[in-house]
């Protein structure tokens, strides 16, 4: 596996064991094991309905999902016992597949409220609007974007591409330790995909891990993962290096599902 030598040296950031999750009485995850270390980029691929988004949402603490069994430890703490806002304050971030529109609250105000919530947690002083603007300008510059979305209400009237970019901008400002991207590539044309991927690559560093949930391999042409997992019917059925993504692209998911049944 590429990069495995350095990875093994990293500290375990997230450790999921035997996770079983149901929504509205249907078991979606049927025993997921996953270990992510500092700075690693993991991709989770799988067909529709395999449970990819459920895994992303349950790690972020969505209240609609019921954990039936298993554990998830984040920096050694019981993640499943934490409220969504506590997880965020501990450095976990979910880029939503369907970012939510919030009327009447500008992007800038929202992002400052979120950043100040994290800063309070870390014992740092809150930023006033002017200080925040400086932080924001610096972040925008680092990923090469402008501030055209900042004074519009959060996600309201945004195009699909703008919504996904907005998620990545939040990621950039909130500086998480573990960023989960839930189908960030869905609905993006190739230019928008490249823009988002380049920003993510800018945000990669040895202290920040990524969990990239995607149906298609194309995002992984731009963001090279350390590990690729295949999720099928609520279980990780295969893990490997980046080449696994290419294999899936060539052969489709049916090949794997058959393989699972055989084994």
């Amino acid at each position: 596996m590429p990069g495995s030598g350095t990875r093994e040296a990293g500290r375990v950031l997230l450790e999921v064991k035997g996770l079983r999750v149901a929504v509205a009485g249907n078991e979606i995850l049927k025993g997921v094991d996953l270990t992510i270390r500092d700075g690693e980029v993991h991709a989770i691929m799988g067909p529709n309905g395999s449970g990819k988004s459920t895994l992303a949402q349950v790690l972020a603490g969505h209240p609609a999902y019921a954990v039936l069994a298993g554990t998830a430890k984040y920096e050694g703490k019981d993640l499943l016992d934490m409220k969504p806002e506590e997880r965020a304050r501990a450095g976990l971030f979910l880029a939503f597949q369907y970012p939510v529109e919030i009327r009447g609250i500008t992007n800038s105000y929202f992002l400052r409220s979120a950043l100040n919530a994290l800063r309070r947690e870390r014992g740092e002083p809150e930023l006033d609007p002017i200080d925040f603007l400086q932080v924001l300008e610096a972040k925008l510059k680092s990923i090469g974007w402008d501030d055209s979305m900042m004074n519009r209400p959060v996600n309201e009237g945004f195009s699909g591409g703008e919504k996904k970019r907005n998620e990545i901008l939040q990621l950039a400002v909130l500086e998480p330790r573990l960023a989960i991207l839930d189908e960030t590539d869905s609905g993006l044309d190739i230019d928008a995909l490249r823009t988002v991927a380049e920003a993510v690559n800018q945000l990669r560093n040895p202290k920040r891990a990524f969990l990239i949930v995607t149906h298609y391999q194309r995002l992984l042409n731009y963001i090279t993962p350390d590990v690729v997992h295949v999720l099928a019917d609520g279980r990780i059925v295969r893990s490997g290096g980046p080449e696994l993504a290419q294999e899936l692209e060539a052969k489709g998911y049916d090949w794997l599902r058959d393989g699972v049944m055989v084994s």
Partner: protein
Amino acid sequence: MAVEHLVGAYHAWASNGASHAPAWLQTLRDSGISRFSELGFPNMKQEAWRFTSVAPLAESSFELAKPASALPSLDAIAPFLLDDETSHRLVFVNGFFAPSLSLVSSDGVRVESLSQALLDRPAIVQAHLCKYALSQDRPFCALNTAFVREGAFVHVPAKAVVQKPIQLLFLAVPGKTQQIVMHPRNLVLIEREARASVVETYAALESDVYWTNSVTEVVVGDGARIDYHRVQRESARAYHVAATQTHQGRDSTIHLHTVAFGGALSRHDIGTVLAGPGGTLILNGLYLLAGRQHADHHTTIDHAADHCESHEYFNGVLDGHSRGVFTGRIIVRPGAQKTDSKQTNNNLLLSSDAHADSQPQLEIYADDVKCTHGSTVGPLDPRALFYMRSRGIKEDQARRLLTYGFAAEILGRMEVAPLRAQLDGIVRDRLAAV
């Protein structure tokens, strides 16, 4: 019965204090009271009053307001003022003009009391008064017309531009002895290609019981623009019944903002007529209610000419046992082709005992038009709550922020910045208590 009481009060007043009015005005008043006594108080069997009972008004006696024994100080009314950001200010206390609290300058723009305008320029008042807000099937408008005496008169001549807002403040200082009723009557005339902004505020210093029954007519000429802000901050025990009627000419623009914070029972009828081609109307409203407050907004947008656009946004935030009613009627007349009309009414229920009724009514008699409407009634969106929490914002703060956004969306459209800031502060205070 209160109808007889009010008719009796009218005759006593007409034969005494009001007797020196010009004949045309006396005729207008007489027609008002006779129409009111024919119609009586509305009841809930009538379509326009399905959700709102005015029994508290019909079943008690209100005395015609008298001048306050002492005027409040400028400091006392400061919370309702816009500091030095106003060009003109008219203050009325219990419906009577208070020159010592007002700010009048003569710069070609007329901003004065209606009683003064009746003396100075009766012809222009006669030409417009009661020509837009019609009493035919509206008992409260008829009653107001019967008691037409005082209110604000604003006249901006052709091509004049008034930079700073004109403030009209109606204060109730009823005293404790009896329940009073006031009938302010306002006439705002913006001539061809002129521009002005107005802030019309109803407020009280104490939490008294009283009744305001106001009517405002706004006439906007060809190519003119008005930004009209109406703020209802009556006492929490007051009754507020009002009509705002606008009439706009070719290529004119009206931005009409309305906010209802106060009143135990309030009803606001807003009627607008887009009478000339190319007109633009924004109707932007917020009601923020708690306790047992009841607020009813009845809006009618009449597209009487072609190529006009109207955008209507009303948001309600309802807590406690409060009830909000919104009826949004849009009429597109035959020949009003290329009309572009959008209406939204969103109601946020913060309590399971709060209630909202939302009724769009579209009447479209032209075929080449674009009309859309949408309304929502419900609690905070759980997806938005989770979204905020997933960014580190605590649940109670997320709730407040989302609720604030409902109000801020409407306030954000207001042009007068100091008013926006003032209302924003009230909203924040109210939400801190939620």
